[in-house]
Structures are given as structure tokens and as C-alpha cells.
């Protein structure tokens, strides 16, 4: 059988970051291919290349055996490729039909009645229950996703790519989505579904392509494999030669205690479910989990950006007030955030970014002490090997250097509690190594450290104890030496029996 779409030796580099390397993959009409991989494995990048949003650094894409250049989503659409991204691109104030038709070019005059009929016909043909006249902003997330799918179908796509479509859905919506996908498949469409939930892979797919660190490690026939084998492939059985933190001596004293944190999101879904844990002095507690399982929300709460619905956190007998970050300075809590760009200001200087969090130390009677600021900045730049000058705009820094900037301003205050998220995401190897060293140094100096990371290697390498979070809930706890990649991988994918 001839492949509908064929990827030949596709690679994609972002500077020194390898997002995809030497990928060979074929997709056939009428099949559902699952793209499985940990966070950062390169799934989104691969699908964006198929949809013309990124240009491959190397390699070729064939559609029906003809080499094609996809320079824009329009090219991809013209070649029959549809993409439902993690972030919907709908106009909330317009109707379903208008959104669907907007996406298709041509024709200056809109005949609303005709459009509604056409869209209704397409929806009916593919069994999507949607009212063409409904206003998008009034639809549920599941329905909005259906509009995105309808958009692609209306443009007569032959291959539909869905990037983590279930991440935002309720279980009921997931059922409905899978039913839709099955029927599309029966109509001969090829489907690529991106996910990191093993049970979903098993349920929906015919074949599974597994990505790890940007490389395609294997393609499996779903029927001939099982969750455990897939988890192994996803996280890698081979414990790579990382030097693990083997000094698991921790202090007796519990420094930080979190109790029963619960939080609902705007849509009323529980995103944190009674989260409780303790961290001792001189201990690194790692929380492993696939992104989107409550880590971001937990961080927002602990970082003082959001109040939880219930629960408390106590640092050395002092309760945290959750929405007052000023309070954090006094309690000596250091925070290394998940997203560097939401914690630094690109158009301010390196020096300003270094001092802003503790600006009261650098001003007298409201006046800035420029000299003190520059001295301090130059010292940190030197101590933390930041490759930049004090007056450079933060915008000019590479990911690794920006991370060092945050590390510098946080660690220079010798925090008692350190809340660290994704400390090496998008950071090159050298800088990652440096960040890890610094965190271990803090541990030895007696800090309690909470480490939240999607990178399982990182969690295993640094932690003294590991928790696994899945759908807002702590699934299990391991002493670091008892944790195996397989066990963690299965738990991260929601397989409780592994505990």
C-alpha cells in the first residue's frame, strides 16, 4: 500500500536544541497513528512541520509519493492536511459556521444562509453534532474542539493531526472525540493523534510511533504491544549515564509542609486534589509527571500567584499567604519559575532583572541606588557565569543565560525553601549541568527544595524522594533509590497498578 504522507529523514533544530532528528515515518489513509512521547520529545514540532508552520532543517516530506514543500499552513491545507492545535484559533464572537468558513479563502460575499447549510451538511456527513448558528464563545471546550475539527474537514483534509486533544477535555468529551475519530477513520481519513496517555493510545490507535529526545525510537503495532512496553519505550529503559545524586542524607527537621491543597479551574474541573507533602531541610523532593497534570497550578499556588480553594502550606511554622508574593521575600522563599519569560522582563536590562524582585534593598527613600545595583549585578554576572553585561537587555540573552540570571537572583538570597520548576527546559547541556550543580549545592547548604519537572531524568538525578503527580493527584511516593523509570513512567501515564 502506498503511504498518504511520508516523512524522510526529517530533522529540526532550534539553535543548538534538537527538536527532531532523522525521523522516518509513513502515514496511511484510514489509519490512526498515535504519536507518543514525553514532554519535549518533539511531537508538536513534528506536527507543525507537517502543517507548514515550521520548515524542516533537513529531510523531505512526500504526499502521495510526490515531494512537497510546505511553506505555510495554507500549503499544508491545499495538500489536504488538517491540524487541531493545543491552542484553538477560533473567533469567539462569531458563529460556528462563520468560523468554519472564515478559514477557507475565496469569495468576498458571504451568503449566511448558504454557509449555514453547507456547514451543517459537512457536520452531518462526519457525524459531528454542532449547530452552525451557535456562537463559539458559548460553546464548551469539547465543542470548540469539534469546531476546529469541522474546520479541517470542511477544507477536505485527508490527514487530520490532533495535538494532545484530550488534555483539555472532560472524560465525557474524550469519549465523544474518540467516537468521532473512529468514524472519520472509517471514512478513509488518516489520523495522527498526539498524546502521552497510554490507555488512550491503546484504545484509539492502530499504530504507535514513539519519540524520545527528538528521535523516533520505535513504531509499534498497537495490538501487538502493551502499556508497559510502551512506557519503557517512551521514557527509555536504559538509565542514561547520568551521575545521580547519591548523597541522600537529609535533615530530621521538616522545613516545609503542604497540606490538602485543592483547586478548581475556571471551568470547575478539579486540577489539584488534596495535595500533601513534607520537605525536610537538606532535601530535594522531586515531583514527576507529564505536563498538564496540575504542576502549573501547584506552582502558581506555591509561588504566591493564586489562592487555593482549600489547604495550607507552612514554612518553618509560618503559614504562607498565597497571593502575596512580597511575603515570600521575608520568608526567604526562592522561586525558579516554569516559564522564564513570565519571570523576567525582556526589555529591561540584566541588572534591573536581577534586582527587581528585591528592589527595596536597592533603593533609599524611593530613589534607586544605581551604584549598588550595578555592583550587585556585576558580582552576580561573575559568580554565576552569565554571559552578558549588566546593561544588556534581557531580550538578548540565550535560554541558558536567562536561566542563570534567574538562578543568580534567587540563590544569591540563600533561600530556605526553593521552589524550582523545569530548571533546564530548553537549556543547553553545559548550562543544564551548571544548574544541577547549583541546586545540589543549595541542598548541601540546608535548603528544602521542591523540584517540579517534566524531565524524568532530571527528577531521578537530583531528588532524594520522588512523588508522581497525575491529573492533579499525588499517585505515589518513592525513595529515590527505589524509583525505576518503568515504574515512574507507568504512573505518570496514569497506570495506578504500577505503584
Amino acid at each position, binding site marked *: 500500500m502506498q503511504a498518504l504522507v511520508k516523512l524522510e529523514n526529517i530533522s529540526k533544530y532550534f539553535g543548538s536544541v534538537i527538536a527532531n532528528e532523522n525521523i522516518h515515518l509513513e502515514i496511511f489513509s484510514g489509519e490512526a497513528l498515535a504519536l507518543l512521547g514525553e514532554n519535549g520529545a518533539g511531537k508538536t514540532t513534528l506536527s507543525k512541520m507537517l502543517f507548514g508552520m515550521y520548515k524542516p532543517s533537513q529531510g523531505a516530506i512526500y504526499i502521495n509519493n510526490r515531494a512537497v514543500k510546505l*511553506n505555510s499552513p495554507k500549503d499544508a491545507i491545499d495538500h489536504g492536511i488538517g491540524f487541531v492545535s493545543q491552542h484553538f484559533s477560533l473567533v469567539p464572537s462569531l458563529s460556528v459556521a462563520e468560523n468554519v468558513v472564515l478559514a477557507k479563502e475565496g469569495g468576498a460575499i458571504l451568503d449566511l444562509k448558504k454557509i449555514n447549510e453547507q456547514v451543517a451538511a459537512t457536520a452531518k456527513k462526519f457525524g459531528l453534532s454542532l449547530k452552525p448558528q451557535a456562537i463559539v464563545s458559548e460553546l464548551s471546550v469539547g465543542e470548540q474542539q469539534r469546531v476546529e475539527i469541522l474546520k479541517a474537514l470542511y477544507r477536505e483534509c485527508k490527514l487530520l493531526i490532533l495535538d494532545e486533544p484530550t488534555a483539555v477535555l472532560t472524560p465525557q468529551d474524550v469519549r465523544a472525540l474518540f467516537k468521532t475519530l473512529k468514524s472519520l477513520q472509517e471514512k478513509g481519513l488518516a489520523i495522527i493523534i498526539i498524546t502521552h496517555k497510554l490507555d488512550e493510545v491503546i484504545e484509539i490507535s492502530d499504530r504507535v510511533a514513539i519519540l524520545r529526545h527528538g528521535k523516533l525510537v520505535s513504531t509499534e503495532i498497537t495490538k501487538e504491544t502493551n502499556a508497559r512496553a510502551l512506557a519503557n519505550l517512551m521514557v527509555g529503559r536504559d538509565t542514561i549515564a547520568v551521575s545521580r545524586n547519591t548523597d541522600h542524607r537529609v535533615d530530621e527537621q521538616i522545613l516545609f509542609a503542604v497540606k490538602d491543597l485543592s483547586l478548581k479551574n475556571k471551568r470547575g474541573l478539579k486540577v489539584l486534589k488534596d495535595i500533601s507533602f513534607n520537605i525536610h531541610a537538606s532535601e530535594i523532593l522531586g515531583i514527576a509527571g507529564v505536563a498538564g497534570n496540575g504542576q502549573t497550578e501547584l506552582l502558581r499556588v506555591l509561588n504566591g500567584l493564586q489562592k487555593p480553594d482549600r489547604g495550607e502550606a507552612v514554612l518553618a511554622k509560618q503559614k504562607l499567604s498565597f497571593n502575596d508574593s512580597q511575603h515570600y521575600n521575608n520568608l526567604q522563599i526562592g522561586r525558579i519559575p516554569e516559564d522564564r519569560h513570565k*519571570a523576567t522582563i525582556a526589555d*529591561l536590562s540584566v541588572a*534591573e532583572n536581577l534586582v527587581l524582585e528585591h528592589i*527595596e534593598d536597592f533603593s533609599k527613600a524611593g530613589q534607586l541606588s544605581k551604584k549598588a545595583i550595578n555592583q550587585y549585578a556585576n558580582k552576580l554576572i561573575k559568580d554565576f557565569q552569565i554571559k552578558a553585561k549588566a546593561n544588556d537587555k534581557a531580550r538578548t540573552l540565550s535560554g541558558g543565560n536567562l536561566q542563570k540570571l534567574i538562578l543568580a537572583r534567587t540563590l544569591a538570597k540563600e533561600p530556605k525553601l526553593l521552589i524550582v520548576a523545569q530548571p533546564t527546559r530548553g537549556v543547553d547541556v553545559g548550562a543544564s549541568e551548571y544548574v544541577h550543580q547549583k541546586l545540589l549545592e543549595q541542598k548541601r547548604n540546608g535548603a528544602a527544595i521542591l523540584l517540579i519537572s517534566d524531565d524524568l531524568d532530571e527528577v531521578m538525578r537530583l531528588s532524594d524522594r520522588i512523588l508522581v503527580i497525575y491529573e492533579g493527584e499525588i499517585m505515589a511516593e518513592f525513595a529515590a533509590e527505589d524509583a525505576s523509570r518503568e515504574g515512574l513512567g507507568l504512573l505518570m501515564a496514569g497506570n495506578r497498578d504500577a505503584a
Partner: protein
Amino acid sequence: MFGLKIERAPASLLQRFMIPIIAVAITFILASILILIAGANPLEVFYEILFKPFTKRTSRIEILVQATPLILTGVAVAFAFSAGYYNIGAEGQLYAGALAAALVGPKLAPLPQFMAIIIMLLAGFIAGALWALLPALLKVKLQVDEVVTTLLLNSVILFFISALLNGIWRDPISGWPKSPAIARSAEFPQIMARSRLHFGFIIALLSLLALWWVLKRTRFGLELKAVGLGKEAARFMNIKVAKTMLAAALISGGIAGIAGVSEVAGLHHYLIDGISPGYGYTGIIVATFGSLNALGIAFAGLFLALIDTGSLSASRSLGIPAYLGDVIQATLLLATLVALLLNNYQIRRKDA
């Protein structure tokens, strides 16, 4: 395939320097077309607008008189814009200040001049800030877009003042719609003999100094910029975003209010309709064209005042419409905005 795409890429230093110059050039090319349509010689008109005013003492001074409210509203707008608060209401806040001056001014006769003037300034600042308060609160508490609310409030105060002027304030004898005159002690002194140039110009210069000092030298100024350049990050770095933005909005309104006081106390000595021909809006052009810094605003204020002064005399001597000055200013704003965009984004050819 051939196509264009827009990429985020800061311009080089040379480009940054060239951009305002190019904006001006584009503006004058577009204006030339209009002048030709109006049946005049563009070169003659530009000479009249840009150079002629320098040849006479009165018009040289007139530029400074015109620049006074423009610099004040420019500084007002710059405070707000720096904090990412898009105050389009300087016009209304100016009128609030002018109204306060007209209300307080007549009662200050018993006071010595410096006291009276301080009270005038305070009253204007407070009135401007109060007029800015509601949209600012709506913004920080309920995330209501300030562009819309500040803009709408401009016409509210204009109608209110119009009602006062045509109602209780209407001069019973002459029938003129004007407020009672302010006390002599509340009038701004002239700062140059035989001219209209008044103390308000000094205040405008002081406001430039204040803008420079606050943004460059104070903790509040740094926090203000942080909020303007990255709200979320500012919040992460312990900055009270809502308070800072509110403060910026009120200061902005206050300074615009002072611009109103300056027009009343320095030039007219009573409040009339149309005391501002849109200084509050021109202030937006001044602040933007001056890239929100003190030196830039000083230049932009003087430049636009030159265009105002020059186009008035050009319309008289060459018979072209006086609105040409407005057109030039508006075109300049658009050209500046495009130029600013190009400062941070570059249009590139899409490589296949």
C-alpha cells in the same frame, strides 16, 4: 513560493536613529499630495510651516506658548503609556483641570500670588486625577479596557463644561459663554516681556524633568516600566501591579489637569469652550513620537508646536486650509506608529 512575513527582530541602532526621520519624510511626502490638490506649491508651504516661524520674534515665542500644553499632555500620556496604561483621556483630564482652575481661581484674591498659584496647580492636579480615577479603577479591578473608557469620558466632561458655560456661567451682560475671571493673584506671571509666554512653560519644563527623574532614578519609575513591559513578570517579581498602574493613571490625569490650569491661568484667565483644540490627543502624538522619554517629548512638543504655528500662518498667507496642520500631525502619528512597529518587527522575504 514568494511571500512576505513579519518577524520579531529589534532594529539596529542606525535604523532606530533613522526611523523618526523617515517618519517625518513620509509625512511630508503625503502632505505634499494634499497641498498640490489644494493648489499650492509644497515647497513654499513647507518653508512657511517649518522655517518662517523662526524668522520673527513673536512667532518664535508663539512656538513656546503652543508647546506648553503639548509638552504637559505629552508627559501626562508618557507616564501612563510607560506603565502599559493607554490613557486616551488626557483631553478630558485637561478640561477637568481647567474647570477646577475656573472654580477655584476667582476665590483666591486674598492670597499672595505664589500661594494662589500653588493652590491652582493642586486643584488642577487633583481634578485631572479624579477624572482619571474611574477608568483606572475599572481597569485594575475589572479589566475594563481603558482605551474605551478614557476616550468616552472626554466627551462627557466637554458637554458638562458646555452646559455650565451656556447655563449658569453665561455672562449676563454680553451673553458670552465664559466662566467668571480668576483672581489676579491666581494668574500665571508672564516670563518674557511683551509676549504671551507664561509661567506654564516653566512648569512644562519641570514636568519633563520629573518624567526623566521618575523613570530613570526612582524605584517607582522602574516598577512602572516593569509593569508596562511585562505585567505578569512584574507580578512575579513582587511588584504590586494594580497599585502601580493606578498610580500611573492618576499621575497622568493629574499632569493633564495641570495642562488645563496652565491654559486658564496663563493665557485666558477664564474658562471658555474649546480652550483646548485637542491638546490631549496631540499629547498622544507627542509622547509616542518622543518615544516616551523626556528629551524626545521636548523635541516632539516643540516640533508639533512649530507645525501648529507655521500652518496657521501658512493658511493666512498662502490661502491653504488651516486644517493642513492637523493632517500633518495625524499623518505623523501614523507614520510614527508604523516606524515604531518596524523598530521591533521586520518584514522579510519568506525563503522557500
